[in-house]
C-alpha cells in the first residue's frame, strides 16, 4: 500500500474514532450529575429565572434534536456555544491549543535532548558511575509526582531566588511568530526571551517524568541492540564504534522510543492538567477541568474533539515515521 493510500485510510478511521468519542461524551453529559443551569446560577435564583436561562441556552430541546443540531454544525467547525461565556465553543477551545502545544512540545524537547544522550551514555558505560548516575536520575524522575516537582521548582527558582516567574504565559509563541512575519525582529527577540523565561519551569516539571522514562527506554533498547549479532558483525568488519552505536544500534532503538514519544505527546495534548494548574498555564487541560466543573458541555466536547484529532494525527505520524526509520516496516 502506498503512503498516500495509507494516510487516507487512517484519516477515515480517525474520523470514525472522533465521531464515536463525541457521541459517547454527548451521551455522558445526560447521565452526569449536575445540570448546567444549577452550576451556572447561584442557588438563590428563582425557578422562573432558571427556566428562562435554560430556554436561552437551548437546553430545553429534546436530546435527539440537540444531538442532530450539534452534529450538523460540526463539519463546519461549529462546536456550539459555550454555556458560560456565550461565545463559540470552537473559539474557546482553539484559543487554548497553542499554549498546550507549546508546553507539550517544549516538554518533549527537554525529554529528547536530555534522555537520549543520557540513555546512550548509560548503556555504553554500563556499571560505571555514569550509568549509576543516569539510572538513579531516571528512577527519581519516574517516582517524582510532577505537581510536587512543579511546586518545588516554583518555591526554589521563582519565590526564593527569583530566577524565573512563578506562573502564567504572558506571551505565546504565536505572537512571537507574528512579530517575525512582520519583520519586527527586536520585538520577536524580546517576545521569545519572555516566552522562554515563562516556559522553562513548566516544561522541566512536565518533562522530567518523560525524560526519565525515555532514558530508561533508550538504555534498555541500546543494551539489547548492542548485544545483537549485526552489531558484532559491524564491529568485526572494522566500523568505528561511533558509527556502530549511533548509526546502527541507536537507530533501531528509536522505534519503541518514537512509539512512546507519540503516545506521550498525545497524552500531553490531552492535558498536562496538573502542570497547567500549578503554573497557571492557560491550556486545554485547564479548560477541560473548568468546563467539566461548570458543566459547560459544548466546550468539553470541543476539547475532546481536538484531543481526539491530536491523538489520531500523532498515531498516523508515528506509523509513518516507523517506515522512515526502518524501511522493512510496510504499510497495511
Amino acid at each position, binding site marked *: 500500500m502506498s503512503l498516500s493510500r495509507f494516510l487516507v485510510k487512517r484519516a477515515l478511521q480517525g474520523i470514525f474514532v472522533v465521531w464515536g468519542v463525541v457521541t459517547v461524551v454527548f451521551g455522558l453529559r445526560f447521565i452526569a450529575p449536575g445540570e448546567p443551569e444549577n452550576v451556572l446560577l447561584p442557588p438563590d*435564583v428563582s425557578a422562573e*429565572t432558571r427556566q428562562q436561562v435554560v430556554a436561552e441556552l437551548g437546553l430545553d430541546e429534546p436530546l435527539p434534536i440537540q444531538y442532530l443540531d450539534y452534529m450538523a454544525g460540526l463539519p463546519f467547525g461549529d462546536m456550539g456555544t459555550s454555556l458560560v461565556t456565550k461565545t463559540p465553543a470552537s473559539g*474557546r477551545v482553539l484559543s487554548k491549543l497553542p499554549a498546550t502545544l507549546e508546553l507539550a512540545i517544549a516538554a518533549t524537547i527537554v525529554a529528547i535532548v536530555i534522555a537520549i544522550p543520557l540513555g546512550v551514555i548509560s548503556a555504553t558505560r554500563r556499571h560505571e558511575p555514569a550509568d549509576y548516575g543516569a539510572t538513579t536520575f531516571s528512577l527519581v524522575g519516574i517516582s517524582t509526582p510532577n505537581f510536587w516537582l512543579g511546586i518545588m521548582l*516554583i518555591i526554589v527558582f*521563582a519565590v526564593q531566588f527569583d530566577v524565573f516567574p512563578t*506562573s*502564567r504565559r504572558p506571551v505565546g509563541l504565536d505572537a512571537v511568530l507574528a512579530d517575525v512575519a512582520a519583520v519586527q525582529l527586536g520585538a520577536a527577540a524580546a517576545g521569545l526571551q519572555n516566552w522562554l523565561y515563562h516556559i522553562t519551569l513548566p516544561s522541566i516539571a512536565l518533562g522530567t517524568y518523560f525524560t526519565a522514562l525515555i532514558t530508561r527506554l533508550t538504555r534498555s533498547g541500546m543494551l539489547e541492540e548492542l548485544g545483537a549479532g549485526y552489531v558484532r558483525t559491524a564491529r568485526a568488519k572494522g566500523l568505528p564504534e561511533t558509527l556502530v552505536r549511533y548509526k546502527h544500534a541507536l537507530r533501531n532503538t528509536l522505534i519503541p522510543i518514537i512509539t512512546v514519544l507519540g503516545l506521550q505527546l498525545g497524552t500531553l495534548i490531552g492535558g498536562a492538567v496538573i502542570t497547567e494548574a500549578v503554573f*497557571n498555564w492557560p491550556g486545554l487541560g485547564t479548560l477541560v477541568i473548568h468546563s467539566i466543573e461548570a458543566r459547560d458541555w459544548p466546550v468539553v466536547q470541543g476539547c475532546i474533539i481536538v484531543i481526539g484529532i491530536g491523538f489520531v494525527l500523532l498515531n498516523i505520524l508515528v506509523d509513518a515515521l516507523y517506515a522512515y526509520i526502518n524501511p522493512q516496516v510496510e504499510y497495511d
Partner: protein
Amino acid sequence: MSDDNRVTRRTFLQYGGVTAGAAATVSLAGCGGDGGDGDGDGTPTPGDDGDGETPTDTPTDEGPSVPEDFPVRITQGNMPSGLDPHDHRETPTDVVMLHAYEGVLGRDPDGAIFENLATGYERVEPGHVRFTIREDVQFHNGDDLTPADVAYSINRMVQEDVGFASPQRDQLAGVNEAAVADDARAVDVFSDGLNPTVISSFGTYCDVMQQSWVENHTKAEIGKQMNGTGPFQLDSYTEGEEVVLARYEDYWDGPADVSQVTFTAASEAATRVNQLLGEETDVTVNVPPQEVGRVENSDVARIEAAPSTRIIYNAMRYDVEPFSSQEFRQAMNYAVDLESIVSNVLEGFGSQTGQPTLEGFVGHNSDVSPYEYDPDMAEQLVEDSGHAGVEIELHTPVGRYLKDLEIAQAVAGYVDDLENVSASVNQRDFGSLVDDLASGEITDKPPWYLIGWGEATFDGGLVITALLSTGATFSSYSNEEVDSMLEQSRNQGGDERDQTLQELNALLHDQAPWIYLNRQFSVYGASERIDWSARSDERIDAYAMSPSS
C-alpha cells in the same frame, strides 16, 4: 465635579473598612430606622452625597496627587464569564464589572448604602421609589448619563422583552418597571406591593449601561466590550485569560490612584499565593488557612480578611425523622463545639452564628448567642426526642466553601461522639447536590446537608424567606409562626420590620431548623505595595486602593 467630592468618596471607600466599622454598624442597624440609608420606610432620604453617613465629612486634606503610573494586578479563582454586566451571576465577574459599571446606589466596605449615580432617593408611595440622577456623569465613550439610561438598565434586567432573559432578574425581586420621571432628572421604579427591600437591592445590584450603546451593539459585542461610568475603562480583554482596565481620567468622582488594573485568574490556591510572594500580583483571593503562614511570614505581602456575607449551616429537613423533632434539632446544635471548629478547622477565619441572620444584617438579633457546646444536654435532648440510637448521614459538597468537608467531618464527628446517635459524612459533587436542592420538592433534598448562602443585600429577611419559609425552593423548613412573621415583615418598613425580624431570629434560634455553623470569612493576600482593606461583600475595589505609604 469638585475635588472635595472626589476626596470625600475615595476616602470613604478607602478608610471605610478601618474606621467606619462602628459607623456602618450603626448605619445598618438604622436601616430603615431613621430613614438614613436603609431599606426605606417612606421618609425622604438624603439628597446629596457624603452628607454625614460616613466619617468622611470631616475635613480632609487633598492628600497626595494622583500617581502617574501605579498599575495593580488582581488574581481571582476564575476569569469573568463575559463582560455584559447583566448576564452573569458570579462573584469574579462582578468584581471586574464594578470597576467599569456603577449602580444608582453603592455600598461601603461594611455594607452601608451610599448614593452613587443617584444623588438621592425617596419612597413616593408604597411600591414606588424615585431616584434622582446625578448630573455631569459621562460614559467612557464621552456621552452624558441620562435618566433614560438608568431606566433602560433596570428594565433590561427585569423585562425580558427589553433585553434578554437576564439571570439577574430576581436580584431586583418585585420590581416591575422603571420609567423616567416627567418633571425631574429622576427615575421612577415601580414594584409589586411595598417591596421593603428595594433600596437594599439597588444598593448591591443593577449596573447602569448606556441605552444607545447597548442598542447599537450585538449581544456578543456587549459581552466583549465595556462602556460604563465607572472609574476604569476597558483597555483589553482576552477571554479566559486577562482583562486590563485603564484609569478613566474623567471619572465624575475623580480619577483613581491606580492607573491600570489587570485581572487574571488561577484556580489553584498555591499558585495564587506563589504569584503573590513572587511579586507578580497584588491581590489574591481565597488564601486557604494552610497558606496563611507563608503569606504572613513574607516581607512582600500580608493577609487581609473580612467577614463575608455567607453563612455556612447544616439544614435539617423538618418533615423527616429524626429532624422533625425540635428537641433532636436542638440536640444537634448542643452537640457541636463550634468554637473549636472556628479556631481549629478554620484557624480563626470564621465567626460563630446562632441565628440565620448575620451580624450587621437587617434583622440580626444581638441578644441571641450561638448554642453552647454541651454534649450532656445533647444526649438528654436526644433521649427526650425519642430518637436515641438513630443513624444519620450528613451530605456535604467538597471544595465549594472554605474547609467545607473538614467542617462537615468535624460536625459529624461531634454528633457521632454522642452515645445515642451515629453520624457519618457523605461527600457530594456540588452540582448533583444542588440538583437535589433546587428541584423545588423538599422530598428530593437530603435529610441533613451542609450548604452555604451568601446574601449580598445584607438583609436577613431575604435569607429567611429563601431558606426557611414554607414552600421556598431552597427551604428545608416549614412553620406557621415563622411564615406569619415573615408575612408581617413584608408589610413593614424601617424599625418596625427590623424588630419583627429580630423576634423571628430569636424564634428560629429556639426552633433550630439548622445546625448554626460559621460565618465564612473572605481571606485575601495583599501586596505590601498597596494600601487596601478587604470588604464584607467579596468585592475587590481598585478605586479604593492607593500606594502604601
